[in-house]
């Protein structure tokens, strides 16, 4: 975290603009970055709730998704409070209640209390767009609660670094959200930034800034946003009261790695070298005569690189991948033999129950 704090000091360009006019509608076609910022900031709010202990921030960010005062934000501990406070860019203060949440999408929708008759500037969630890498973007959030007074949130600029998918997998991405994300080359994701918005340079809605997340594949902190396209139907349903929370497929079906391994390499007639370190490469030690492995020509010292298009980086990964096979599946292997890549295919044999 200290690295990220340090980054804050010199890597981020924080632009803060005093708002002279309250833009009540989003229809004004923004022309330049400056005009976009002025148009977007009134739609972004600061949220205050639970936290403040054990290094957990008690502040977050959200954005209006209706003129009646519905706010989309990140589903986080900040909302675990009796009263959630919301501060607008001009300093107006409200309380809000949590109307509904979709933890799998890391989404919560709030409704401002005592806001009847007031019209708020808002984003049309169902008009959110997608964009490719290299697109200039702006991130709006109350990172580190820098915008502590009656002032709009902080803005950072950058480009979309990549559009990719994160899979919530223990040890790789410790995130409740699985799915597509926009990765940003600016430092958008910091303490309290989650729930903020990512827009294009001309103010079109792209994504909601996610919680801080470490990418174990590269050992780096990720700056990313969840596409609002993925969230818009849930937002609409929560607002209209028709929302039914989807059953979390993981709730009764724990980690895949904890599953019993249904198949072993031996079921196909080969053995791996002894698994001695964390990343022992999956070399074949021997094959049984007349086995499926022998018939497709697997040989000792072949290195298994892929199982059904999944890169296999260790013996353990191979055992997991083979363990997940189902009877009747095809097992496609790519092995390295010398400098050649060799493809083989085997039918997953039937297995008697209760084995």
């Amino acid at each position, binding site marked *: 975290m200290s690295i990220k704090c340090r980054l804050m000091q010199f890597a981020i360009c924080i632009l803060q603009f005093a708002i002279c006019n309250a833009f009540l509608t989003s229809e004004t076609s923004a022309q330049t970055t400056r005009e976009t910022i002025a148009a977007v900031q009134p739609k972004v709010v600061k949220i205050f709730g639970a936290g403040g202990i054990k290094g957990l921030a008690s502040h977050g960010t959200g954005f209006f998704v209706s003129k009646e005062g519905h706010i989309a934000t990140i589903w986080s501990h900040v909302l675990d409070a009796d009263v959630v406070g919301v501060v607008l860019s001009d300093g107006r203060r409200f309380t809000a209640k949590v109307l509904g949440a979709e933890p799998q999408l890391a989404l919560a929708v709030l409704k401002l209390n005592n806001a009847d008759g007031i019209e708020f500037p808002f984003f049309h969630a169902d008009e959110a767009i997608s964009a490719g890498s290299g697109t200039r973007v702006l991130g709006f959030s109350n990172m580190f609660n820098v915008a502590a007074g009656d002032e709009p949130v902080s803005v950072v600029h950058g480009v979309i670094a990549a559009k990719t998918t994160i899979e919530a997998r223990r040890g790789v991405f410790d995130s409740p959200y699985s799915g597509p994300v926009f990765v940003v080359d600016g430092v958008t994701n910091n303490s309290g930034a989650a729930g903020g918005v990512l827009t294009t340079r001309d103010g079109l809605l792209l994504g909601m800034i996610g919680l801080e997340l470490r990418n174990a594949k590269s050992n*780096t902190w990720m700056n990313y946003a969840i596409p609002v396209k993925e969230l818009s139907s849930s937002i609409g349903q929560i607002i209209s009261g028709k929302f039914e929370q989807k059953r979390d497929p993981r709730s009764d079906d724990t980690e895949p790695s904890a599953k019993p391994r249904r198949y072993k390499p031996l079921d196909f007639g080969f053995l791996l070298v002894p698994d001695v370190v964390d990343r022992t490469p999956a070399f074949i030690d021997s094959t049984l005569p007349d086995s499926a492995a022998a018939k497709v020509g697997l040989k000792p010292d072949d290195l298994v690189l892929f199982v059904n298009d999944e890169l296999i980086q260790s013996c353990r990964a191979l055992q997991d991948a083979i363990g997940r096979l189902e009877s009747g599946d095809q097992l496609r292997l790519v092995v390295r033999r010398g400098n050649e890549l060799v493809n083989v295919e085997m039918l997953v044999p039937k297995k008697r129950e209760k084995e």
Partner: protein
Amino acid sequence: MMKSASLMLLLLSCFASTSAFAWQAPTRELEEAEEQAFKRAVSQVAPSLVRIETVGGLDQVQNFLLGNGPTTGLVLSADGYVISSSFNFLSKPASILVTTTDGRRMTAKVIANDTVRSLTLLKVEADGLVPARAAVKESIKVGQWAIAVGRALDANAPNVSVGIVSALNRVWGKAIQTDAKVSPVNYGGVLVDVDGTVLGVLVPLSPQDNSTVAGVEWYDSGIGFAIPLTDVLATLDRLKQGKDLRAGLAGFTFSSTDMFGGDTKIDRVRYDSPMYRAGFKDGDQILELDGHKVTRPAQVKHVLGSKIEGDKLAITIKRGAETKQADLTLVGELPPFEAGFLGVLPTREKLAGVAEGVGVRWVYPDSPAAKIGLQPRDRIVKFRDQAITSAAQLIDQVSRVRPTEKASVVVRRDGKEETLEATLAGYPADLPKELPTSPIEAAAEGEVKKAVEKPDGKVEAEGDKKAEGSDKPRTGRFGEEVADSKNAWWAFVPESYNPAYGYSLLAWLHPPGDTLEATVYDSWKLEAERRGIILLGLKAANVGAGWQANEAEFVHETVVSFQKKYSVDAGRVVLHGYDKSGPFATHLAFKHRDVFRGLILAASLITERPPENLPEYRLQFQLICGSKDPAHAFLDRNANSLRALKYPANFTSLPDLEHRYPNADGVDAMARWIDSLDRL
């Protein structure tokens, strides 16, 4: 396509020129044009970028946790040469896979590494790959757009970060600096211009440190580096030979370690180096390198920093009134440095006294000194026509003469001076069997304060001393817990401590499980008193688990603080490990070569590859163990390998001893060895 690109460039340059006069908000058109240019630049270079995946390998290197995700490489030739950052292969993977933009997947071989610029050349068996276009190095300007492109985040499209060129010739002339976000997701990828021409290959670098992980801590910070592609291409043929490229060495050292304050006067020209062969000598002053005027060591490093073995270096020096010029071809390795040995132990004189010459305390039997008849109480007043004023100076002078070379020695004996010629030898491996102690006069009254041993045998804590308001150095046995850490230490300073003399300092690192404090104290106390050795027993934060790599600073700082508090001869600071603490002691001795001048390993092997023997950091070794210790033969072999690197190394075998801490004979041998570290 080309037309609209050049139009866009024109637009961008218009903006650049107007902005020099007054800041104008960029127009929507300009912002859009720039954005399109970024995307076009990325698509230009994308076919030359490959995705690299590795299988197997290490999890961790130097306490640095390695990711195992995909990384990036850059195609250099249609027939399959790919350059990448060495960082991507730190895990020493069993297999490397390369996927091209057109979806072909191939195994790759590591051909060679460029250790200076942290690059690795791969080869895949393929044809029809799309090599990248390199920007002319001279055309790259600070402030121009610079786009960092990698292929690690997503299999189907490159990942992008936009910034500018922040600086050129960074990290001792090696790299372009950019504020685009550079991290493991694009190391091995490229920095491109706004038209997609490749400026350089992205790598982690640090001006302070040469290791492959150095600079990774700056990821995504706005401090990123790229090696100019033209420089990569210039050495491609050499890398293709399959030999790692090492830093180019000329073979000289400066007397000042101050990079910015010191001058460029050469302290030593290394034997048989390019400098030596070109006829340069100690004391020459470097004026110019490759046409750059240099007056400070930092400027010299800036010219040499990007040099690789085989590169040329034009050098101009000044010697007295004349100047001398030569073109050197740099080498990757110098013959190991070997100091000459005369065979004398210098008298340990009072530090304050200014003396003419250096007294002879003892002469090694059969040594060059013995052969020319030097005797105790002689004074060496000149060596190679240099007037001698201190033992340290004489050690330095003698080390400049190589074994088998001759040197003139002027000796004063009974008031008469005599000029002798000695043929120097190498350092002897054996210890002198008998070595008389060096007398130390008693300290004047009140100069030191004795530690009081309490009736219960415990020693009073360091804090008690402060209560009495005395800051005189303590003697006897005492200890301290270290605030803000779980570490502690104990020490024994000879009761006869006299700050007017220089003492040896023995830093003892216990093995896991047992501090052996009583054993070490009891067996060393008498020798410490006799031979003027200060004992410093350091304790690991977790005695049971033993020393951890992150405790190196504690040991270093404690030793340095003792050097400040007591009169310690900098040439006799020794680390001592036993059994499993040996590797940690070795690591420290190699890491802090400016502090530790001796390493004693008892019943423990050297497991780390020793660094090059350097004249500026004298380091001597003693390996000691029982003849019945299973490690006995290995220690003997260790000592031989150290000698092959031209380090002075003694191996002491203790008859009939099993694997345990050395007995009284062993401690006697270690104390004799410490007491002879100032030999010359």
